[in-house]
């Protein structure tokens, strides 16, 4: 079994929710390996932010990309070689701010990959500015009088964009998150997991979430019910909000099914051209 640790010293704040995510992800990947996922075929990408540091703490191949572009880089990997399993880690600033377009287009496209959103309700790494998911009135260095905009709701937004698998978990419940991760990766299509992640330095939501968390009994009957539950005033429901079968982009798009594996040899290419343009 692949050891998932790296020699990199961990620089998250003590008690940061990201530790729970890291543990859950390791556990989830191990379960997936047990179920036959080949570690050699697993690739990760991430954006820039506290969440992104998970790249350094996981002994898995991939690319530590640009802020906001984790899903775009992930999409490129998957399109190049669809036999790879691609998991992307994003921050709320990263995936729903700077890189919002890529997240929603990935949902629309339904490429077979997974996005784990570290929702800590602020820009942790750049010292706690408000994020697209921060509540109105959030005070950070860029909004010392309180932010003036209402937050996005990640799950309704992703559902509206067409994500075929949508779930929510909590960094303080790594067992649940590991389970969800396994299901998300197994799902054929774009999977989105919103992970509620307390940020002890700028947005300590442990108490808030601990008092609100409930489990979904089942997958909601339809997308509107799912949205309603995701936005529930009193509870933060964990679980799977949507799990729908849909055609994959990589299956529908033209050209080689697997550009890397089917790539013709140089001589073949030249021969083809010679024949075409005699």
């Amino acid at each position, binding site marked *: 079994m692949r050891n998932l640790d790296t020699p990199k010293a961990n620089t998250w704040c003590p008690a940061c929710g990201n530790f729970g995510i890291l543990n859950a992800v390791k556990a989830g990947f191990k379960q997936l390996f047990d179920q036959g996922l*080949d570690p050699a075929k697993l690739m990760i990408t991430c954006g820039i932010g506290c969440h992104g540091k998970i790249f*350094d703490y996981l002994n898995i191949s991939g690319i530590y990309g640009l802020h906001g572009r984790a899903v*775009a880089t992930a999409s*490129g990997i*998957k399109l190049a070689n669809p036999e790879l399993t691609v998991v992307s880690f994003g921050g709320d600033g990263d995936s729903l701010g700077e890189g919002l377009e890529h997240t929603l287009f990935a949902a629309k496209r339904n490429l077979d990959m997974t996005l784990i959103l570290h929702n800590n309700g602020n820009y942790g790494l750049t010292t706690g500015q408000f994020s697209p998911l921060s509540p109105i009135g959030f005070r950070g260095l860029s909004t010392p009088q309180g932010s003036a905009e209402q937050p996005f709701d990640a799950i309704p937004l992703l559902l509206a964009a067409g994500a075929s698998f949508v779930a929510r978990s909590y960094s303080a419940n790594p067992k649940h998150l590991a389970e969800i991760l396994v299901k998300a990766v197994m799902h054929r299509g774009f999977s989105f997991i919103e992970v509620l992640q307390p940020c002890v330095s700028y947005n300590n939501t442990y108490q808030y979430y601990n008092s609100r968390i409930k489990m979904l009994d089942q997958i909601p009957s339809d997308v509107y019910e799912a949205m309603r539950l995701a936005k529930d005033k009193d509870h933060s429901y964990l679980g799977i909000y949507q799990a729908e079968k849909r055609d994959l982009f990589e299956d529908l798009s033209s050209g080689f099914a697997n550009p890397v594996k089917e790539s013709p040899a140089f001589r073949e290419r030249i021969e*083809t*051209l010679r024949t075409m343009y005699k």
Partner: protein
Amino acid sequence: MRPDTYTVLIGGKAGEGVKKLAQVIAATGLQLGLHSFQMDDYQSLIKGGHNYSLVSFSPIVIHNAYHKADLIICLDELSYTQHLNDLADGGFIYYNSSEQTHQQGIGIELSKLMKEHYKNPSNPSLGGLAIFCAHLGLDNELMLRIIKISYKKNIEENLSFASQVYSLIQAQSKLPDAISQAPGLHLFSGNQCIGLGAWAAGLDTYFAYPMTPASSLLHFLASMSAKLGVKAIHAESELAAANMAVGAVVGGAKAAVGSSGGGFALMQEAFSLAGISEAPLLCVLSSRPGPATGVSTYTAQEDLLFALNQGHGEFSRIVASPDTMERAFSLATELLSLAWEFQIPVILLTEKHLSESAQSIRLPLGDACEATGLIHDALEPYNRYQITDSGISPMLFPPSEEIIKWNSHEHLESGLRTDQAAAMVAMKDKRDRKREHIALACARYPRIAVYGSGSRRIFAYGSTALEIREALQNLDDSYQLIVPIYLEPLPVDQLLPYTDSPALVIEHNSQPRFATFLKEKIGLETRQNILKYDGRAWDPLVLATKIKEAFDA
């Protein structure tokens, strides 16, 4: 001096099939053994307005279309008023007499006839084809064959409409005689050459967001995806395209992106990502007049310095610009190959004039080179950014048991992030060590082109060389054109011998940017600048006069 050329100008509204007709006419010339050059002047609109195309034929190679036409075919009235002055001495102009009455020229009732032959009158350009064939005395059978091959819809209607127009016209001119049957000549646009070159070298995936004049590269590769397997992805934005392309490289694919200046501006951060992560990436930048949205459908060279200085931070890149259609093909193979050899981003800089014009050429398949990278062999444990003497670290692609970590941060050999002083220096030094090797490797390819051996020296780059070379075919042999193909690293040694006298520098800019660049890099003194910045290519004859004047003065 050059032998006779013959030029056809076709004008009409957008949506009337002018461009397509020009292609068909150019291809017809090819069948007759003639060389041809086609260029299109069109506006950013879909129907109406005014488009026109020029096709020039010649028994010998022709580098640019002429602007004075021996035959002008006007599908609508506006074309007539716009182009009457473009008629060459002894030329003929045909107009659509359903739309207008005029003294000069020959009227054909195109609109009326079209209504008679079509249920939904839609393709006046077939009338244009008939005029071309009949006026030049081409065989009726030949025309019908061409129609069947070139126009797949409404075949019966097309044939009857064209036949009737043909029957109304007398042969009054003829095309130049072909010297040979010019076997193997095909009509290629610059973007097609670039696409085929990149594919030949190994391109697997192309990522773009449409932007004129780069869009047709996306369209071409998409249209070839079924045949060639290449994946052409129209992404949600240029940012997406460029980051996807880097991802595709990480996944093991040979990747390219393309856009014009505005879209390229949006790719800069990812370009820089390719720099630090050492992702081989071919970037095609096809320029149009700027800044910002500028003028979408015309040509310019304003992006030279922008291209040379793309992306924040220090990293090596190669920038080169093709001066011919053939070079567009071979350079695309060279650049993809250099990108992979050195794991760097490279820019193929070109202009609308080359991207979208078409010329009859032989694809120089023999010049193609393969894109291959140094690949890790599995004995020692893998480090993506292994420190090496050459600065080149072996690559490795999934699936692999080894850990392969690419990084947008400064990093250790392992690909893990670092901010430590010594590690930063070590990794920057590693990347910097590639510089001299890159310069050496580029020397494997033609880095400059020299045309002619006269003493009157001209410098230009990119598609401006097409215009100048055709202009020079109309002058005596006292001229010499020097074209740097590789602009970064610039082959200073190769260029220096040509700096002993002040030169004429010709470029499509309002300020002498290329001239200044040459002055700064190789000390070239400029004798005079010829600047054109109205988005239009030169007429070779007008340019020839300007060139001569510049030296006679």
